[in-house]
């Protein structure tokens, strides 16, 4: 009885007032994740400690890694007199105790409501020689965790990136978007495979998927170095993956340092991966190596071999917009029907983009919604069921209530492990998605079949 929606579908369309079972969370967690993608960085939450604890906990539960971040520890005083004193003390203490190379401050609803002027406070703070304090405003009553991620990416660019005015280097900047470290690793591999040097940031590889070592490092070896981030102003171009999470940062870098940004989708699926590779090919005049051609060929080969296992099945997908858009596109390529596509992050652009893709594919009667929640989605599924659900952990209630298989993709995934290390991007990611999707559908088929219909070979 895990129904999150009344048994009978409501006559009225979904609700609009508050949220019931949200598909988003607040900005700071995205900012914290982005900040962890800088080597030697301690994210700092300017607000009360409760928020900070929650954000760290959410990251730890998803990545199965410690997620370090400090807090200004607001008490009532701060709400009356402002949080400037707290932040200054915090900056001093953090450098003295935790000794990071850089502190990335993000705000919370609390400090935003109070109206603390972070840049001024930072200017008045004691920052040791050679260390940095950067910031991003992340009010959660606006946008979602993706907005927070984007804001921090922008903050990193505005504070750190520099151009020395000389000729640009034959090198790509990569803004990966809010994806798992396994995805970031794969994107870097593809670009390296093409023989193009790159700087990725935020880069949480080696941080949120760090290996077990002899000694524990509070600042693991991964992450983009400050030096590289600074130098990104001298790169030839920026591959900006994900309109919601990366485009603003890319635009900032373009206007600040004159590095042109190429807006791309996060490379999920054949088409988006092709687009990334073509952008690198054209941008740097390099050839596509045989190895990548083989990888692509394997994906297409697999799609041909197993398409009958999933073709025509209806899917409900929900999650972050930059993942939903290319994922829906890949589902269309697979011959599946993205029946419902929902994101919790606001913005009409989402509905327009996805509807456009559906229209082009000739798929009718799908429903797409930005700033929706799982209440909406569940209502729709009650009205007309689907065969498969793709989304984060929170989809498991619907999966159980409606007895639909769930493929876990996105953030947060709290009830499975290993996923942060395994890519869903690139051609390798295509294979993994195909495997995950067809496995759950075949397992369902096996489970549901009668003895006489139970087949050895599928």
């Amino acid at each position, binding site marked *: 009885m895990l129904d999150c929606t*009344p048994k009978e579908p409501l006559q009225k369309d979904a609700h609009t007032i508050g949220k019931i079972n949200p598909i988003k969370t607040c900005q700071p967690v995205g900012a914290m994740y982005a900040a962890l993608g800088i080597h030697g960085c301690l994210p700092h939450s300017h607000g009360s*400690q409760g928020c900070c604890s929650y954000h*760290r906990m959410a990251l730890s539960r998803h990545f199965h890694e410690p997620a370090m971040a400090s*807090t200004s520890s607001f008490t009532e005083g701060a709400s009356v007199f402002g949080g400037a004193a707290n932040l200054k003390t915090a900056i001093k203490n953090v450098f003295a105790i935790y000794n990071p190379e850089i502190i990335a401050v993000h705000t919370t609803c609390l400090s935003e409501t109070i109206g603390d002027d972070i840049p001024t406070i930072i200017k008045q703070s004691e920052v040791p020689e050679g260390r940095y304090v950067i910031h991003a405003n992340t009010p959660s009553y606006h946008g979602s965790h993706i907005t927070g991620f984007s804001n921090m990416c922008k903050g990193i660019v505005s504070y750190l990136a520099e151009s020395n005015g000389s000729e640009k280097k034959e090198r790509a900047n990569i803004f990966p978007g809010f994806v798992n470290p396994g995805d970031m690793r794969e994107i870097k591999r593809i670009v390296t495979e093409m023989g193009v040097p790159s700087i990725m940031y935020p880069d949480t590889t080696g941080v949120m998927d760090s290996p077990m070592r002899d000694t524990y490092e509070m600042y693991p070896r991964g992450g983009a170095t400050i030096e590289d981030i600074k130098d990104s102003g001298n790169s030839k171009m920026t591959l900006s993956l994900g309109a919601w999470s990366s485009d603003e940062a890319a635009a900032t870098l373009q206007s600040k340092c004159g590095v042109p940004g190429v807006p791309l989708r996060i490379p999920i699926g054949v088409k988006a991966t092709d687009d990334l590779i073509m952008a690198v090919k054209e941008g740097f005049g390099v050839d596509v190596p045989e190895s990548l051609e083989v990888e692509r060929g394997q994906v297409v080969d697999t799609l041909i071999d197993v398409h009958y296992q999933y073709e025509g099945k209806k899917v409900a997908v929900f999650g972050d917009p930059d993942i939903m858009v290319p994922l829906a596109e890949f589902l269309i390529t697979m011959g599946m029907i993205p029946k419902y596509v929902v994101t919790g992050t606001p913005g009409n652009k989402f509905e327009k983009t996805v509807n456009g893709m559906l229209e082009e594919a000739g798929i009718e009667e799908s429903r797409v919604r930005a700033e929706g929640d799982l209440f909406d989605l569940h209502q729709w599924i009650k009205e007309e069921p689907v065969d498969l659900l793709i989304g984060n952990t929170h989809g498991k209630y619907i999966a159980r209530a409606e007895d639909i298989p769930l493929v876990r993709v996105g953030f947060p995934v709290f009830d499975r492990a290993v996923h942060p290390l395994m890519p869903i991007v690139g051609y390798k990611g295509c294979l993994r998605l195909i495997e995950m999707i067809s496995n759950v559908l075949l397992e369902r088929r096996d489970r549901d079949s009668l003895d006489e219909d139970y087949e050895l070979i599928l």
Partner: protein
Amino acid sequence: MENECFVPAEPTACIDERQFSIMTTGKNKSRIHCADDSLAGAVSQRACVYSGARVVLNPVTDAVHLVHGPIGCAAYTWDIRGSLSSGPEMFRQSFSTDLKERDVVFGGEKKLVACIDEVVEKYHPPAIFVYATCVVGLIGDDIVAVCKEASERHGIDVIPVESSGFISGNKIVGYRAAGEALLKLIRPEEGETVEKTRKLNFLGEYNLGGEKWLVERYLAEMGVEINVAFTGDSTVAALKKAPGACLNLVQCSGSMHWVAMSLEKEYGIPYIDVNFFGAENTAESLRKIARFYGDEEIVRRTEALIEREMERVRPVIAKYRAKLAGKRAAIYVGGAFKALAIIRQLQELGMEVMFTGTQTGKPEDYEQIGNIVSEGTVVIDDANPAEIEKFLLEKNVDMMAGGVKERFLAHKLGVGFVDHNHDRKDGLAGFDGAIRFASEVYATTCSPVWERVKKNPFEEAEG
């Protein structure tokens, strides 16, 4: 000073200002400051007032828990406590007013009203708890008034939980806010009374991993019935019968003592402290309950149950003890009540407790802890990861019991881990829980994976 109980014998702190939050047990008793606010710049493990209130009230299974605030506060607390329900699952849905900028500027009361109306129309819940988060406290929404009006309009309980977090980072303030909300919920209407029974209420039991059901089975065997638990697997209707109990059991001292005292004052229900973590504690608690009823048959059945169960538990503990004796353990949990219980269990397993701390301990608690651990044990209040790291390494700890925030740090430090918090999936209470706990401690402490960590051929090759 009220918050002081010991003076530091030997300052072991990493930060000067924190030296009074850490002590090492030894001959000269030291004092510890515990309810101190966390430092600005700390990587504090502490939660907030709202979180304290939410964990206490969340297991009321058929109520709607509506979080009045921006989206995050609700999203992070969505079904995070593994309380199980034998019926309704309403509490596992996440309701948020999802405050937006204009609400923050012009006030969120209207939106709250609309959300309450919508929820009532869609779900017809018997009660709604409306939680105030920090922002709501700042913008000054009058949730008490909104709730009162909504109660009248809909004829159900709409109860404000005043849990604005910034008042204090201490969860105990949140427990109190939850306690007040519960008392409000169960207070009979004017002129109505609740019939008295021979049943008992079980305060501070949240049915994590079905722990309430386990104790319920023991009690049933003794001939004692649970009226309602606060709040594990409870419903609004069952809670309203709380005044009819003849006894209150209090399990989690942090969250429920105040409620027990209020129930005694208001309804004349006496209370006793119980503790179902560990076989010895469980046996003691069951005996206490039997003594309260003073019925020979109950006492006889209780003794029979304890004898049977202890016979089952003893060899298991002995088996694990043989493997765990001498291993070194650390504890970092929310409340001191639990810390004490775990120390005892680990000691029964022959382990040495090297380091123990809580988020919300009171001075008396720390004194009690100081009395049962051996000399040289580090006792710490509101530990930060740097301190946890330092002591885990320094004390060469093999296994830690704590919550999710400590888990992955411990793992990275090569230390085994048992979740004794919301993320535990199997009950750790009662006799069965004692067995489960011992097996979990063994599984993590002696996991074969540590062999592979120690024997890394690449490193040997490098010499």
